[in-house]
């Protein structure tokens, strides 16, 4: 085994830190169910003004690496808002046409839940969002989402179905998979944090449920899943040959962590208002798209 450094570079650390604090400030750490079906607590203009959608563009040796984007995506996932930052970063990284466009950019992926020839478009419901016809090798152009149909499975992803699908280069498909896996590990981290807080406060039998060993061990397992999900995303970012399987494995671990977080919440865990299902829906949709991207790798 070669021992590589697993640390992100300076740009990854700085951008992740800035994104993390901006999201915490914008949401005031409110429960996701209070805002995810309405207006985003953060505006796209705030993102564009900070230039975050351009952070993945390769200019010189100090530009963000995929490892840096993992750090950024994880920070982004830690507070879920309904904005197309990650698809825009990746589209602008892999297409100069997308990079020159001022607004958000997305793409369309044919997945297992869709009829042949149609694709799932993350944030396709957003007015004026542009979609790439091809991504990678600097091919493709921007279009409005063709044949748009709203798909409301994952409200935080504002997905739409389209009658067209994007053609991905192997590199673009690989990198998008890795970035989404990292985002999911951030989402899972947030869900486990919610479950830990709930277990400290919720009482049964006169004690916080978090004092019971059965609950503790669920949370310890959930925490380990998140740790490993992050590790798998880092591995995927540094080892292209294993990127796709690493990303899918990472997403599976994040899903397990969110499932355990729901379990720890007891009956509240499967209510709409507690909001944990938004995380689960988001990560399941990401897994569906990442699995499909494997066909392009």
């Amino acid at each position, binding site marked *: *085994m*070669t*021992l*590589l*450094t*697993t*640390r992100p570079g300076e740009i990854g650390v700085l951008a992740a830190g800035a994104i993390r604090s901006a999201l915490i400030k914008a949401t005031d750490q409110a429960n996701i169910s209070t805002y995810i079906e309405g207006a985003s607590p953060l505006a796209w203009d705030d993102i564009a003004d900070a230039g975050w959608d351009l952070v993945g563009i390769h200019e010189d040796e100090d530009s963000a690496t995929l490892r840096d984007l993992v750090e950024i995506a994880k920070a982004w996932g830690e507070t879920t808002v309904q904005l197309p930052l990650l698809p825009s970063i990746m589209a602008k990284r892999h297409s100069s046409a997308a990079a020159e466009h001022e607004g958000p950019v997305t793409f369309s992926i044919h997945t297992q839940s869709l009829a042949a020839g149609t694709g799932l478009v993350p944030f396709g419901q957003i007015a004026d969002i542009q979609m790439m016809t091809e991504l990678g090798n600097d091919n493709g152009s921007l279009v409005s989402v063709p044949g748009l149909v709203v798909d409301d499975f994952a409200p935080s992803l504002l997905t739409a179905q389209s009658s067209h699908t994007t053609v991905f280069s192997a590199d673009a498909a690989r990198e998008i998979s890795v970035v989404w896996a990292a985002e999911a590990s951030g989402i899972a981290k947030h869900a486990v944090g919610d479950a*830990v807080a709930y*277990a*400290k406060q919720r009482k049964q039998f006169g*004690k*916080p449920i*978090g*004092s019971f*060993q059965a*609950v*503790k*061990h669920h*949370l*310890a*397992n959930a*925490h*380990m899943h998140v*740790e*490993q999900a*992050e*590790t*798998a995303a*880092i*591995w995927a970012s540094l080892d292209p040959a*294993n990127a796709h*399987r*690493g990303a899918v*494995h990472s997403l599976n671990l994040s899903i397990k962590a969110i499932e355990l977080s729901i379990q720890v919440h007891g009956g509240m865990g499967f209510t709409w208002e507690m909001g944990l299902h938004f995380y689960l829906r988001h990560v399941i949709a990401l897994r569906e798209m990442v699995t499909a991207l494997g066909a392009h790798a």
Partner: protein
Amino acid sequence: MPTIEDRTSREDFTEAARTWLQANVPTRWKENRGSLTEHESDDIRHEWDRQLHRGGFAGLSLPKEFGGQGLSMIEEVIFHDLAAQEQAPDGLARIGRILTAPSLIGHGTEDQLARFLPKILSGDEIWCQGFSEPNAGSDLAGVTTRAVKVEGGYLISGRKTWTSFAKMAQRCLLLAQTDPSAPRHKNLTMFMLDMKQPGITLSPIKQASGLSHFAEVQFEDVFVADEDRISEEGTGWQVAMTTLMNERGSVEATSRYVEIRSDMDLLLKTLGDRPELRMQLEELDMRVELVHWQVSKAIDIDIDSPDFFRATSIMKVLWSELWQATSTFGLENMTPETADHWRLQYLETRASSIYSGSNEIQRNIISERVLGLPR
């Protein structure tokens, strides 16, 4: 050839260590260790500790002022990985180097450091660990081995168990109760007891696998001098925590990774052509590589940060449960060529989730000390 001190990058250190290992791992061990007698095997392992010292590879991450190499955990992990790949012997000096040395550096006197560290690093003195007892396993604070104060020292009486290297050890790092009336965690003291004296009885423990890695040790009024007590009376628990929470976790995980990788390679070699097993093999293979990446991530964490401590419990649970999974899979799918290996490995790895702090204790540590859940 430049000395180790001149080599700063991971690549350079890796190259130096690999070259040294290839030149120094004994051929008899590499090629014929199965046919060596226990005595011959112990001789090679003991000599290996001295070779490491002469080659400048003993105490890699211990500070230079204490005779170490002044490098970091990164070099420790690289070296252990390479040593396992080159099939280097497992030395006998392990307990002294990874448990006694950090305890002495943290809590010992100048005199104790001068008396013990050089022989620990040179490999001349073998140590064993006297912590666990028949009635104090996961509840380590419950040790009842007594240390009764006498003129110039203490008399030790009690039973220690799961003691590796007991037969060869000159010294035992021993946790005993000095004040039964004091509150829990304040009634214990750490000693460095001379194992070559009367009153010590060893009984080997035969394990479920049929192998015997440990002994039970009975002490009857065994003397230990005042100058061989670490720190003050009543500080034994704190000293034990220093010992157990030093950074051994990632070194242990690295050695285990190489062993599990070798088991995984055997699975792939013997079962890789069975399409019905492909998915499971793929999943196990990925978990094996994740252990390696988890270690790489852990050693990039600042050792003084609480994150590092968090990382060691996670690594322990991951490698131990994975090793059980690979050996269980091997057993379920064994062939005439691999049956002996998997039967033994399956029984041996029943222990991996129990030793080095049981996985239940590790999960308690994660949930209470990392996640802050109430006790």
